[in-house]
């Protein structure tokens, strides 16, 4: 699971009331996989990050990164940084190449734990946690 995905997920149970974000990461295994695909160019990466910037929850990202052992992200995102190419490139690396392979995601509201195995988070609820309401 990439940090970008972590930045969008929340606890889907009813008790969390949609507030189950961001998950606290307890990392057991973190891997940096950096194999650029054929179409990868610096320009594309930077465009990608620029597109993501308005969507990102920055504070959540900073915390998640530090939980995965990356403490280099600044606490606030300034206009200068959002324009700086080396910064955007580094940010791309953090968002896309850092994978949480094994670990636990803990909901900040209910404390429900969602395991991550083999790089895939299991966000499904047990049957006794679901309510019989169609969204």
């Amino acid at each position, binding site marked *: *699971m*990439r940090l*970008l*995905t972590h930045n*969008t*997920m*929340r606890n*889907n149970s009813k008790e969390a009331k*949609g507030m189950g*974000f961001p998950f606290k990461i307890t990392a057991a295994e973190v891997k940096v*996989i950096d*194999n*650029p*695909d*054929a*179409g*990868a160019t610096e320009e*594309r990466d930077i*465009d*990608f990050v*620029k597109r993501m*910037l*308005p*969507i*990102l*929850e*920055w*504070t959540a990202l900073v915390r998640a990164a530090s939980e995965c052992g990356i403490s280099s992200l600044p606490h*606030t*995102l300034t*206009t200068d940084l*959002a*324009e700086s190419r080396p910064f955007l490139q580094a940010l791309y690396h953090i968002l*896309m190449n850092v*994978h949480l392979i094994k670990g636990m995601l803990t909901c900040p509201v209910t404390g429900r734990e969602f395991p991550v*195995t*083999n*790089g*895939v*988070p*299991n*966000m*499904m*609820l*047990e*049957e*006794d946690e*679901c309510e*019989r309401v*169609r*969204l």
Partner: protein
Amino acid sequence: MTVISMEHIVPVVNKTAAIQQQQRYLVLVEFVYRHLNFQLAELKSILEAHGIHLGSSSGSSSGCEILPLPVPPTNRSISNRAFVILSFPIEEAKRWSGLTQTHEEQQLWGCSSTNLKDCANQSFQWLNRKTNNNEVESSSSSQSSSSFQRDCILPLVCDDPERPWKFTIHTLGTKVRRDEQDLMRKTFQDTLDSLKGPVKLDDPTTQEFLLIREIELDGKGSALLRTAATNNNNNNNNKTSSDDNDDDNNSNNITEMTSSQKNNKNNKDAYYNTDAIAYYFGRVLGGRIRSNEGSRGLDHYSLKSRPYLGPTSMDAELSFVMTSLGKVTTESIVYDPFVGTGSILLACAMRGAYCIGSDIDIRVLRGRGGNQTIWKNFDHYKLPRPEIVRSDNALYHRHYRHHRPTTTTHISSSTTATTTTATTTNIAPHLYDAIICDPPYGIRAGARQTGSKLDNPRPVLEENRHNHIAQTKTYSVSDVMSDLLDVAASTLKVGGRLVYIIPSFRDFEEDRDLPRHDCLELIDSCFQPFSNDLGRRIVAMKKIIDYDVSKRTEYLQSIWIDGAESAEKCANLRDKIMEAAREKPGYEEKAAIRKVKRKANKEAKKQEKKRSKQEENQSQQIKSTI
């Protein structure tokens, strides 16, 4: 892209003067003879993805247009033609050329006509005209170097006259006799004489000139033969003598035809099994994706070569068609809510997109059979891993937060400020460029959603919670589709595309039964028949307006026009297919035969097992005695 395999480019010789003045180039696209229904839709999407506008107005200076194909004089309307002639302004042809480079298609330039002589004359004219232009260019201001450069960028326009070349004839799978081929070549003598380079068959720099003889095809892409009635009398006598001559014809019909034609050697036309309806001549401009050799041919991506497969893995070719319809490029973010073995995302990743997939199936976590997981395929092709989450598409909006931060103050750069100020609370955020998927319809894989089938599920014991697999319950097709369309409408960017597959049983009506959404517009719906009763459609939709969260219930209610009735038509297909099979005459007998065969197979396996066991025992006995 898989379907375009060849192109011709030539300036318009016999078309309107208005077009002639502007430099326009004709491209002949020959599609492969599979999925003929999909071809035009895919071509449109590909052109659009590269920013080429496809219009129909003749004489306009920009945009690409489709010209009518040559029609034989008999005035019959001919269907199932696998060719399209596109006319480009020179600037767009350049872009198109870039596109073909990335997708490895075969291009040609040349000209087209119903008459072979005509065709030859046109290409001769074009070639001479072109060489004249070249002379003017080089003599006017010693720009030979610049014209060479342009050759590199734009291989359609001018070429090195010294380049080696070869001449090929393509007859759409039918046979043409050697002497007839010679005649066809001779017709192009003038054109070929103007080429100064040597003839080389397998040099990498060789430019290939291709003559295509188009014939009439039936719906399945095989040749429509001339009515055999007139020649039937001669067939029986000569059949044996013709065997040595016609070795690899596909159907008996053709062998019969050719044997009869042996008798009419005087009549040159009779050497063909079929009547030509058009000739195209031109220069091949690129490779083809479908070729068997080459690391990037379609075979390279065939399902057979993948380490991880499931029963519903999508065919490689169709996955590529779907990515084209979804306009997937290197900048795209693609989401597949029913990822399964990741076969669709694999095609997207090959196009360089960032892929996100989710599935409710536990196998996305565990894989099947030991080490086989979804990552295997991506690693196999050395593609970046997609993002996989086990989640429930029915609860999409509960799994993912709205893709817009609650605190918008943390960033104030000029580019992003405009987007944040433009947001109102009612408009849902958007993230994806395309959502491409093959939803489960219960033919081979049924849809599931979170929850238990019991009203009061038994609580999961605390000590089991760690290893417990949550129960799921069936997820009706109408809900699958309405959730899919709703997720697409709310998460796609405006202009983004939703591409999905829907099965169509015989009573399925495209106009009434396809699900619809106020935010999504139907672009294309391509039908692929499987049998008389069953087929499937690839449906492409485009998001046209922003999603209004307050209208959500309204949206959901209007998804099926006929309500549950429409949804019912694509649900429970397995039962319907079985039922349809039962209705056919002779089903009982066939079923009985199959039953006997199955039994015999089982019995044989049992015997084999017994025998092997006995042998083992014997060998052990022998060992023990030794």
